[in-house]
């Protein structure tokens, strides 16, 4: 085979593309680049479609709820009790019930959750017990909420004889969200740089002193963020409270933790199941209130998280 003539150093010589191939290696591949590119474009479009579907679902959800529910909202709606007559019904008792329950849930689950997280991150030795504890918490996070309802029914309502009270409901929900708080608090505590702890120990501080003065202040925004998010889950929970007997027709304000109660999601559920069209609108109104509360909680969690990230 004759090699193409070479020019002087620095000049390349190109033969016409139709010259016979010197290289026997060409031609064993069929790259079909156009087809592959086209497949890629179709695939990308489908994936984008999936993203749009998700966003569209959210938009449709919010618009539908708002359209049905906004015109029901009024001061009367917020201050009246439930009624069999739709035009006279309101969500006063559910709102108060939810507030009561959430306050108690926060009061119980926050210290317990942070305490457990502190134990796991700062005190627990690397033993089988600790590992079991950790796995147990992870498993509890995955247990369906209705099972917590069954637990609450048997333990708080019956065994501790708290009856169908705010307290029983709050304790049940506290157990439900406890694993979530523990896990997110652990992450926040773990994110505190070790150098902080080492400096404190180096100055002779005990573990608790280090935690109280160094670790907790730095981890607190993250812990609070996680707690708020966990509480925002609790506020929407229905099934466990149905299990422990939160009633659906309450016409008074709960005054003590041992009173009967209802919460907003249960009232919504009740209205949804009623056949008359007007109750659907009431349900939508309740949903708007519930979602607004959730929006506020999540927004504050996000604001906290951003301020936390800036500090770190």
């Amino acid at each position, binding site marked *: 085979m004759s090699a*193409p003539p*070479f020019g002087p150093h620095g000049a390349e010589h190109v*033969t016409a593309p139709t010259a016979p191939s010197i*290289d026997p290696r060409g*031609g*064993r591949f069929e790259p*079909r680049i156009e087809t592959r590119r086209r497949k890629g474009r179709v695939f990308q479009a489908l994936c984008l479609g999936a993203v749009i579907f998700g966003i569209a679902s959210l938009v449709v959800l919010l618009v539908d709820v708002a359209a049905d529910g906004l015109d029901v909202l009024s001061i009367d709606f917020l201050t009246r009790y439930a009624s069999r007559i739709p035009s006279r019904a309101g969500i006063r008792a559910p709102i108060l019930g939810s507030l009561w329950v959430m306050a108690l849930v926060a009061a119980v689950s926050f210290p317990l959750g942070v305490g457990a997280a502190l134990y796991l991150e700062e005190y627990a030795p690397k033993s089988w017990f600790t590992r079991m504890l950790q796995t147990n918490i992870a498993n509890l996070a995955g247990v369906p909420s209705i099972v917590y309802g069954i637990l609450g029914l048997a333990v708080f309502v019956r065994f501790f004889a708290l009856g169908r009270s705010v307290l029983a409901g709050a304790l049940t929900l506290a157990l439900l969200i406890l694993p979530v708080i523990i896990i997110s608090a652990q992450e926040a505590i773990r994110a505190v740089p070790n150098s902080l702890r080492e400096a404190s120990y180096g100055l002779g501080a005990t573990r608790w002193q280090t935690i109280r003065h160094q670790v907790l202040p730095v981890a607190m925004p993250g812990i609070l963020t996680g707690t708020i998010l966990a509480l925002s889950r609790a506020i929407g929970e229905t099934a466990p409270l149905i299990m422990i007997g939160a009633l659906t027709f309450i016409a008074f304000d709960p005054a003590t933790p041992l009173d009967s109660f209802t919460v907003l999601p249960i009232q919504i559920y009740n209205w949804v199941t009623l056949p008359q069209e007007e109750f659907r609108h009431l349900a939508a109104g309740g949903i708007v209130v519930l979602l607004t509360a959730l929006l506020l909680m999540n927004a504050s969690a996000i604001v906290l998280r951003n301020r936390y990230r800036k500090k770190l």
Partner: protein
Amino acid sequence: MSTEIEEAGAVRTRVALKTRSLSVHYGDSPAVRDITLEVPTNRIVAFIGPSGCGKSTLLRCFNRMNDLIPAARVDGEVLFHGRDLYAPDVDPVEVRRKVGMVFQKPNPFPKSIFENVAFGLRINGFKDDIGERVEQSLRAAALWEEVKNRLDAGALSLSGGQQQRLCIARALAVEPEILLMDEPASALDPTATSRIEDLIRDLKRDYTIVIVTHNMQQAARVSDETAFLYLGELIEFNETERLFTNPDNERTEAYITGRFG
């Protein structure tokens, strides 16, 4: 149906790669400035220089890997046997089959040894017997004897040096013209390194090789010609023996005698 780049590769010229006033900017900062050089066919060219001098960036121009970085802008020409790789009608995918790359840290896919080598074949529509080609490639990469009985084993079960040779086999499988090697032995121990260097010298027979290395002794051992880059500029490009024993440029001399870098 072969593309222009395929055809260009089929016609072997004396100069495998040539750059003309090649510059690369990341945003506003230049990484490679106005480089013109030639890589002769079936030779080994080494790029040396202190870290950050642009040698890897320059290497990645040859298989258009810089396209994957949105902020990167390439000006000038890169000619592959006379055809401009950056011409608007050239798809980077076709470039990368003809110009293969081996990376600094071995990066086999978390698949079996066989599937690693077969990957490029399947992607590029290989028409012949895949198993045979896999064996050829593993032999060419001096790995066949060690893995022939466990082709289904995971690639990650191999040692570092073996993984790198697997990556070389994987790159060779798709029949490239040119092999780009970005510090291929820097993550390996000395024994594995010398095996790779022997392999590179053997591969010169069938491929054109451009190797980036920060190890000057390696460049001296392995390459025919060496380019010394500094701050994105080509300072000197000469036959290896000449560059290391009697460099033209005083900065080259400063670098190779260890006065900086």
